[in-house]
């Protein structure tokens, strides 16, 4: 940071009243005159609403008339308003990264509504810190990178196939990598799809055919992804196929690796003949039940919602109810009893199916996990809390509803793609509400049961959703990345040790050879600006744009007065 630069720093401070949100609780006049007293501040203005058209115009006018080269707005939260103020600066010809925002509403006036004096004093601290940082801000330029118009989808189940078709139909090349030797995934084992009772085989056949015949889709079955390098727009994947290894350039990746069903070995005397899983029951129903079967019992939450697997697999209840209805169709006059802990029947249609099943005489018995049912010979004995005694239910076929588990290698897939998995091994989305089908890593998306147990309808919806998200960078053809990222500020100091490379959560750092020896290089588009590298480097060679050591130090210094 050149020292002489500070001579020409001219900061404009705009203090927003936010109607009465700020002005109602803080002494605005005092804040205004205080800001005027701060170093490098050339102009101070208070606005009723700085974000209004009038307020924005005042900023733009002042940049020109007062010759401002830094702008500080003390108002609400950067989460909603920083982009607006930045673009206003840009419109007035000031580099948008010479703007600093101070939050005196959410973090000050709203918190200290009863403490006018202390609140005002805190707002002064915050403004002083913002001004101190602003004086050291440097202009930055947004980073652009091209996007290879090709997507890779890992997993050829219904979610992956749906995403593949959606992208291919939009004209992008798609590569589907399926581990098993045929497309279809778990859909191939299913019978009817609730609640519409559509035929699973029909859907599978139709979709597999569409994917296999699509001119834009290349399918690799019996194949797996062994390596992924690069970043959004410029990924490159190593794929191990039966015909040998392939290397393919990609723009985006969709994870649709699905899930597997828990085989309840050792639970309820499971043996796969008379005592089967709900999934095995589906296969039996597909073939048609033997007419000798009259008594059916199902046990829900087998191997689920316990200490080892605390989560609810979501779709087992609706599957059990659906299969109970199908049993009654195939074997009229049969008895079906479902032993459950809680019925998870979300959505109007599932709710209706549930009511319908009760009307058709399917019996539901609640059981207490403290007193679980047990199998005695050809009967299930369960304690019925309503009756206050044990019931004995004879069965010809016992179906155990076991949860979907994450794929055994989901952790490895996660590492390969640098995306996180949760404690149960399911992939963790970028944000549960705001980015449900994106990963925090740009250019990687997810759908289907790889994310969390999903029924076919949900898998299809998520497949379409992930394809939609993935097509944003594909259709733009380029990505623009926020330049608040890591930079090698002092190349000479870097020893190319790679300490930072190992800790980067995004794989955004790499070592390359230069004339001066091994040095680290920041892959701009992959970096998210977390700053771990800057806090780690023992040579202090790396820093983060707009969060440099100098700037943070200046803020701390300003805070301490």
């Amino acid at each position: 940071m050149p020292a002489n630069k500070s001579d020409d720093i001219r900061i404009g401070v705009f203090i927003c009243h936010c109607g009465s949100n700020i002005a109602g609780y803080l002494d605005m006049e005092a804040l205004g005159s205080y800001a005027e007293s701060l170093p490098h501040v050339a102009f101070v203005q208070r606005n009723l609403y700085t974000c209004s058209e009038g307020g924005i115009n005042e900023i733009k006018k002042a940049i020109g008339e007062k010759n401002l080269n830094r702008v500080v707005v003390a108002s609400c939260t950067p989460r909603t308003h920083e982009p607006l103020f930045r673009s206003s600066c840009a419109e007035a010809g000031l580099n948008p990264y010479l703007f600093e925002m101070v939050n005196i509403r959410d973090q000050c006036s709203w918190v200290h509504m009863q403490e006018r004096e202390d609140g005002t004093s805190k707002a002064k601290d915050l403004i002083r810190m913002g001004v101190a940082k602003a004086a050291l801000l440097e202009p930055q330029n947004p980073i652009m990178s091209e996007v290879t118009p090709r997507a890779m989808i890992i997993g050829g189940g219904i979610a992956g196939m749906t995403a593949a078709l959606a992208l291919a139909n939009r004209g992008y090349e798609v590569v589907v990598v399926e581990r098993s030797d045929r497309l279809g995934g778990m859909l191939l084992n299913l019978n009817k799809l609730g609640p519409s009772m559509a035929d699973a085989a029909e859907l599978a056949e139709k979709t597999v055919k569409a994917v296999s015949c699509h001119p834009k889709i290349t399918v690799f079955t019996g194949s797996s992804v062994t390596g992924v390098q690069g970043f959004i727009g410029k990924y490159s994947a190593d794929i191990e196929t039966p015909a040998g290894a392939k290397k393919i350039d990609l723009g985006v990746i969709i994870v649709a690796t699905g899930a597997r069903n828990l085989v309840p070995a050792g639970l309820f005397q499971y043996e796969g003949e008379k005592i089967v899983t709900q999934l095995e029951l589906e296969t039996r129903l597909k073939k048609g039940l033997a007419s000798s079967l009259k008594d059916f019992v199902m046990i829900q939450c087998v191997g689920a919602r316990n200490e080892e697997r605390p989560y609810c697999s979501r779709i087992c209840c609706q599957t059990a109810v659906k299969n109970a209805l199908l049993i009654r169709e195939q074997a009229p006059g049969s008895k079906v009893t479902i032993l459950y802990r809680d019925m998870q029947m979300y959505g109007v249609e599932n709710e209706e199916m549930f009511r319908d099943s009760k009307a058709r005489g399917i019996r539901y018995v609640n059981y207490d996990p403290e007193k679980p049912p047990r199998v005695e010979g050809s009967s299930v004995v369960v304690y019925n809390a309503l009756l206050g005694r044990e019931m004995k239910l004879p069965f010809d076929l016992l179906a155990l509803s076991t949860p979907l588990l994450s794929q055994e290698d989901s952790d490895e897939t996660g590492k390969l793609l640098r995306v996180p998995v949760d404690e149960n091994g399911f992939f963790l989305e970028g944000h549960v509400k705001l980015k449900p089908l994106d990963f925090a890593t740009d250019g990687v998306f997810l759908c289907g049961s790889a994310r969390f147990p999903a029924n076919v309808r949900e898998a299809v919806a998520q497949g379409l959703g992930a394809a939609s998200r993935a097509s944003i960078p594909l259709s733009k053809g380029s990505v623009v990345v926020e330049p608040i990222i890591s930079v090698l500020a002092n190349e000479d100091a870097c020893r190319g040790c790679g300490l930072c490379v190992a800790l980067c959560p995004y794989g955004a750092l790499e070592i390359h050879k230069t004339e001066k020896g091994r040095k680290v290089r920041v892959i701009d588009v992959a970096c998210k600006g977390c700053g771990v590298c800057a806090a780690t480097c023992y040579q202090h060679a790396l820093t983060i744009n707009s969060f440099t050591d100098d700037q943070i130090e200046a803020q701390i210094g300003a805070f301490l007065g």
Partner: protein
Amino acid sequence: MCTGRIDPALAAKAFRKGLDGMLVVGCYFGDCHYISGNYQAKAKLDMARKLFAHIGLNPERLAFRQCSSGEASVFVKIVGEFTEKIKELGPLGAGADRFEASKLTKKMDIAEAVLAGEKIRWVIGKRTPFLQTGNMYGEIFTEHEFNRAIDMIIVEETEVQEILAGLREGAKSVKDLAASLSMPVEKVFRHILALKRRGFVALKRIAGRSPLYTLVPQEV
């Protein structure tokens, strides 16, 4: 920016400038947009707390807590508790720390030099690889083993930085350094030899029978 950006050397600098307490609040583990930054933050701040305790600053002045952005009440509780704690400890050097304020300032200079220094940053940077994938020989360390190493390095690096700070005042003999730092002569001698080997310290002249050592200016 993530809590992982927080350089422990900056924390030392802030305390040297008179900060009474520093609270870092990050996401829960596994729940962070920056994936693993909060793990790094916690490791570095834990290390800084240990160093502060060793050097004489009450380590409770620096805290790392976790809450999610949706947990306003948890956040308020965390901030409230920390504020109460700092009020209880009082201003820097007023009794809750091992030294009074002016001495602490000098100690925090040493702490900053340790935390900005190569050795400790290298080791803390290697923490995740050492615990997860092992060192270059594939040896994986337990948390306990790693912490023991950190404890040892904190002691050694503090001694080294105290010696360097002593020499900054002018050339000194091992005996004088040992006396002014209340450190055993052998220990000072060992550090001086190591520093000399690494090119940080050189023999200036021999006064009587004692060699005087001086700092070698370092290029950045």
